[in-house]
């Protein structure tokens, strides 16, 4: 035995550390889950009330037919890009620092996708007929209309949900096998079933790694296509302020921007709660901070291009929308948003010292997400509120019922995430171990 550390001696410690959240639960966790449960119940109550009485419980009115639900839909789809972007792109580029981050981010993708789907249902005027949207042979004799961008959207999201389920599941198999070996009781049965007979043979590792190598580039492409299509929902429409070719790239970059912000928040909170300082280190925050500088600049460039084109073009109906943002009735949220997602991240994150301050990064992540949420709302409401026939110009602010549903859904996302980390190791154990024993030095 030499004294030179090889990485192998850390393995028992890694197993213990990373399985700990699955094995021990404090009263604080139950309190947290209970509080979230109350908010979820309130949201569910509000939704039930809305279904029973009518979609008029929102503050929507013509011509603002889409509002906070669609805005939230776009936002949450964006958050779901965090996982795929972080883990997909970083796996592709073989970035060594991805290891402790991928699982947390992939879990966010799953949770965000479930939440996203909910907003479609909140939004429908007659939600009990949602199955009209599903293409299956039916006695109504009507197929959904695939000329509608909404159908492209539904298809894309379903593809994305399927693909990301596979994508998160594959790297989970060895971890499930470990949990199967370490955890007793009824959960052992579940893990045994999920581990699919994994025993870590050379052939199994080879198959798994090949599968991951195949699905990774695919999922990155699906991710880009999904948010492009969400952008098309707007870009294809005639509405002034929507009808623009820039929406697809802008939406994709915006999604990654808010997704990175969300990942930083998740990393910070999980690290603090589960004492993962040995795994999630300052360098990880630093790397994400660098990525956030890139997305901030990219997004600002796209946004500027869009606004400049409108401003220079001086088409009256487009200018009406822009004026309402720059100094009209939406000026306050607009400039707040600009500060949150462009100015603030840029003036802080360009400083290397700031990027090494996890709390600071988490706060910037929060601001980016608040800003991106508002940005999604501002994409929807001002253009709809300024139709070409100016007699119909109106304003909109979400109703109490809408806000309750939005809050309840946020609570649901947090709840699902909290439940998931009791079932799934938040850091990919085998990838972490692999990194320490075989990976490049970090």
């Amino acid at each position, binding site marked *: 035995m030499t004294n030179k550390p090889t990485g192998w001696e850390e393995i028992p410690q890694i197993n213990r550390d990373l399985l700990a959240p699955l094995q021990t639960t404090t009263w604080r966790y139950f309190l947290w889950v209970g509080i979230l449960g109350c908010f979820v119940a309130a949201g569910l109550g509000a939704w039930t009330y809305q279904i029973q009485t009518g979609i*008029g419980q929102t503050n929507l009115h013509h011509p603002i037919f889409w509002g906070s639900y669609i805005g939230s839909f776009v936002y949450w789809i964006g958050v779901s890009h965090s996982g795929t972007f972080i883990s997909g792109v970083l796996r592709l580029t073989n970035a060594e620092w991805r290891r402790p981050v991928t699982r947390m981010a992939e879990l966010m993708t799953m949770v965000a996708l479930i939440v996203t789907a909910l907003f479609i249902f909140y939004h429908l005027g007659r939600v009990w007929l949602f199955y009209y949207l599903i293409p299956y042979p039916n006695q109504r004799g*009507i197929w959904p209309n695939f000329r509608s961008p909404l159908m492209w959207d539904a298809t894309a999201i379903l593809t994305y949900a399927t693909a990301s389920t596979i994508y998160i599941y594959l790297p989970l198999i060895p971890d499930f096998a470990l949990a199967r070996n370490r955890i007793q009781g009824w959960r052992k049965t579940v893990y045994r079933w999920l581990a699919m007979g994994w025993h870590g043979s050379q052939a199994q590792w080879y198959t798994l790694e090949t599968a991951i190598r195949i699905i990774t580039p695919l999922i990155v492409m699906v991710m880009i296509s999904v948010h492009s299509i969400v952008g098309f929902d707007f870009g294809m429409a005639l509405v002034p302020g929507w009808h623009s070719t820039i929406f697809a790239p802008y939406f994709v970059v915006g999604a990654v921007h808010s997704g990175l912000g969300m990942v930083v928040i998740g990393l910070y909170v999980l690290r603090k709660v589960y004492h993962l300082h040995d795994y999630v280190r300052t360098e990880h925050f630093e790397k994400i901070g660098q990525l956030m500088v890139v997305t901030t600049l990219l997004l600002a460039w796209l946004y500027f291009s869009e606004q400049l084109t409108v401003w220079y073009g001086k088409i009256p109906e487009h200018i009406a929308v822009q004026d309402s943002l720059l100094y009209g009735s939406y000026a306050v949220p607009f400039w707040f948003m600009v500060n949150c997602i462009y100015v603030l991240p840029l003036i802080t994150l360009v400083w290397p010292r700031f990027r090494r301050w996890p709390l600071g990064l988490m706060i910037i992540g929060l601001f980016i997400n608040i800003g991106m949420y508002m940005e999604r709302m501002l994409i929807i409401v001002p253009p709809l509120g300024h139709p070409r026939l*100016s007699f119909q110009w109106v304003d909109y602010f979400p109703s109490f019922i809408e806000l309750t549903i939005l809050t309840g859904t946020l609570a649901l996302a947090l709840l699902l995430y909290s439940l998931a980390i009791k079932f799934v190791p938040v850091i990919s154990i085998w990838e972490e171990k692999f990194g320490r024993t075989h990976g490049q030095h970090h």
Partner: protein
Amino acid sequence: MNQENQAVEGYSKKAASPYKWEMVVDLDRCTGCEACVLACHAENNIRISGEEEAAQGRAINWIRIERYWEGEYPDVKAKFLPVMCQHCDDAPCEPVCPVYASYHTPEGLNAQVYNRCIGVRYCGNNCPYVARQFNWFDPHWDEPLAEQLNPDVTVRSGGVMEKCTFCVQRIRTGKETAEKEGRRVKDGDITPACVQSCPTSALIFGDANDPESRVAHLKNNGRGFHLLESLGTHPSVTYLRRLSE
């Protein structure tokens, strides 16, 4: 002139029907009295919204009079613009509906199939004329108003999009009568409620395929234009410019 009025592209080229229903709105005659709005409500079982909903901007009108002010005080003029569904030949509301609730009839009408509508409201966003109206709640009529509902027109439930149909129930009656008598529909056989009630005859309705119809004459009289013509929606409603300026 007005090639677009004639060149009905797309749908109507394959139209099986001999008719092409169109409307003319003579802005020179419109006084903004809103009799058309009232008649439309009575004819089409449009829900009564009440004061509160109207204040929220949710009053449903299949036809509305838009009022624009022109000039500076004291030299101010009110201009009226009746707007209803333009029954576009290339209707932006149609392709975006995921369930085919918004569809084009062979006669060039833009129809809304209430049963299919699930209320995604994309059509409402995409209509540049803001012609589409949404039922935010189930309809309600105070007694005895419920007794006066038109039996020829569906009452729409909450969560469903609706809009002007050119009084399709009257079109159907007119066609059936003509069919029974073994003839084509004559000009003036069919009058939608708004047209019927307009005291100044600012609204004219008829079959544009009939070269002798008043609609066919008026829309080519040199004053004709389409609302937001640059969008290329090819509306079935032709507006006639004011003469006074």
